[in-house]
């Protein structure tokens, strides 16, 4: 058997080995892509869940803030203030006295 024939016999084995490596690489790539896809999807779902949680928390805070604003508005309403003033027995303000340009005013420096 010549060396040429020998090499011809060895070649198919090398070719098969190359194909096998390529196949493994493709499978690995698909596996990696699948793995990354799962990681991405998992991350997306996790983020969505966190966003949802934060949105719910934000909504709770908004409702709480709205309730506080309503309470402030109720307390600050003139009718309510008048009732409070009555209960405090405060005296109504008298006539305002304006200081004119010609009025003598003592200024402490």
């Amino acid at each position, binding site marked *: 058997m010549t060396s040429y024939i020998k090499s011809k016999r060895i070649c198919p084995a090398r070719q098969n080995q190359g194909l096998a490596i390529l196949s493994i690489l493709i499978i690995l790539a698909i596996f990696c892509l699948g793995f990354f896809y799962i990681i991405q999807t998992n991350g997306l779902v996790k983020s969505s869940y966190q966003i949802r949680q934060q949105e719910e928390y934000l909504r709770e805070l908004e*409702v709480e803030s*709205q309730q506080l604003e309503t309470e402030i508005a109720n307390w600050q309403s003139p*009718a309510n203030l008048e009732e409070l003033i009555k209960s405090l027995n405060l005296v109504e303000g008298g006539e305002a006295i304006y200081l004119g340009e010609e009025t003598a005013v003592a200024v402490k420096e």
Partner: protein
Amino acid sequence: MLIIIIFLIGGGILGRLFSLQILQYDYYYALAQDQHDIYQDLFPQRGEIFIQDLADSRRNNQPNYSPLAINKEFYQVYVTPKEIADDQKDDLANKLAELLELDKETILERINKKDDPYEPIKHKVSQEIAQTITDWQIDGLATVPETWRYYPNGSLACHLTGFVGFEEEKKIGQYGLEGYYEDELKGVPGFLSGKKDTSGYWIPSLKQEFELAQDGSDLILTVDQNIQFKAEKELKQLVERWQAAGGTIIVMEPASGAIRAMASWPTFDPNQYNQVEDVGIFLNPAIQKVYEPGSVFKPITMAAGLDSGRIAPQTVYQDEGQIRIKGSTISNVDGRIYGQQTMTQVLEKSINTGAVFVQQKIGQDIFRDYVQRFNFDRPTGVDLIGEVGGNISNLFTGREINLATISFGQGITVTPLGLITAIGAIANQGKLMQPYLVEGIIKSDGQEIDRELKIVREVISPQTAGELTKMMVSVVENGFGQPARVAGYNIAGKTGTAQVADLEEGGYSEETIHTFVGFAPAFNPRFIILIKLDEPQGISFAADSTSPVFKKMAEYLFNYLEIPPQ
């Protein structure tokens, strides 16, 4: 045999598959879509309405707005009858009736609706009550949040705000500002479509569509909450004191037309508008009800006379107590004969024959022209829904008697806002301003739109306005308007006691409507006030009923707006 059985079973399976996948395709496709797809309408938040606090703004050198109409989260209590056990229904109805203050039979009727997946029990339930219901943990009983319009000041400025009611099961602003600014307040709805997870929450996907809802705009009013409160308080006392049918107080800034207060009686609570039996109470008497103003119209007649140059404040005429016009007699209200009088005295003593004298001096065409210039035949254009204009049709009949009676405010109808706007032109050097309530609109993106002042027209010259103002000051200093006088300040004003038309028997009834319109400080006016009292009992003249209230309001405003004496 076995082959036949297998064939039959196989045929049955194929038939069922055909039924499910071909015949009932649409149904199951929709069912599957409902499980995976989400389509939601996104509802915008309704814009809120804010009222001013001028005193606080001045003290802190920055605007202070208080909420007049806001959105508040309440809860709706509902049941799913098919999930409630029969033996629990009576017990549940008892508990709900006690907690929600409802009739037990009504609740039972709703709970017993078989196969009903949703039956509302009560709307606008507070958070505390909703929490109690949640804590009960009863199957088939639940709460869901819902947003409602809320007016934290109750009935304050109710005729201005109006309310949010229902039209074809949709919430819609009705009456007042809620009605007029419905398009600005309601916002633009959005929508969301895409995929949802097993909990029903939206998950990002390629086929998603999302359009954000655009919230409504906020309104900033010219109205001051303290002036409004004072006006409502004084009006209530006035109506109760004289057992009147109703009344109106308007406070306006003559130079701009900005309305600082608009109060009417009777009032209602817009939070509970559905409990009002007489829907007529929802109408704003200041803009939606006309009346014959009486002698408070005389300054308009004088304005026409002065501006046309036919009379001067010192023009004299001879009063004989009455005037006969083609078979009709016009007399002075008090029946007195005043003799020789100047035009200033005509206003001071509110002499009817004097007003007729002026009208006859200027003639039909000029008089008609001036009444129209003052806009009495049209709505003022204020930003409130449903405003009506006055009726001046008697001016066009060509009958001399009609022109004569109109000269002292009979046979012509106006709204209180139309009247104060017209007198406001005298205070504002002859310029008629369009009254307004919203000074700014804040859009949901933060953009602010400020209102520009609108001069309708110059109805009389500044000189005429100045002369007429002096005459009206004289009314308060020397005439029927004396109870409105405030020491240290020049006040221009005019009273009017008008008879109420008898719609059944014709002519005029015994009932009267009292009006006082005045502005101060007279020669640099910061405010003009109209006070109107409908059908008071036991008092004859506006000088005694409405003028003292003007004094109280003016004293308050001098202090509140920090206007020093002259």
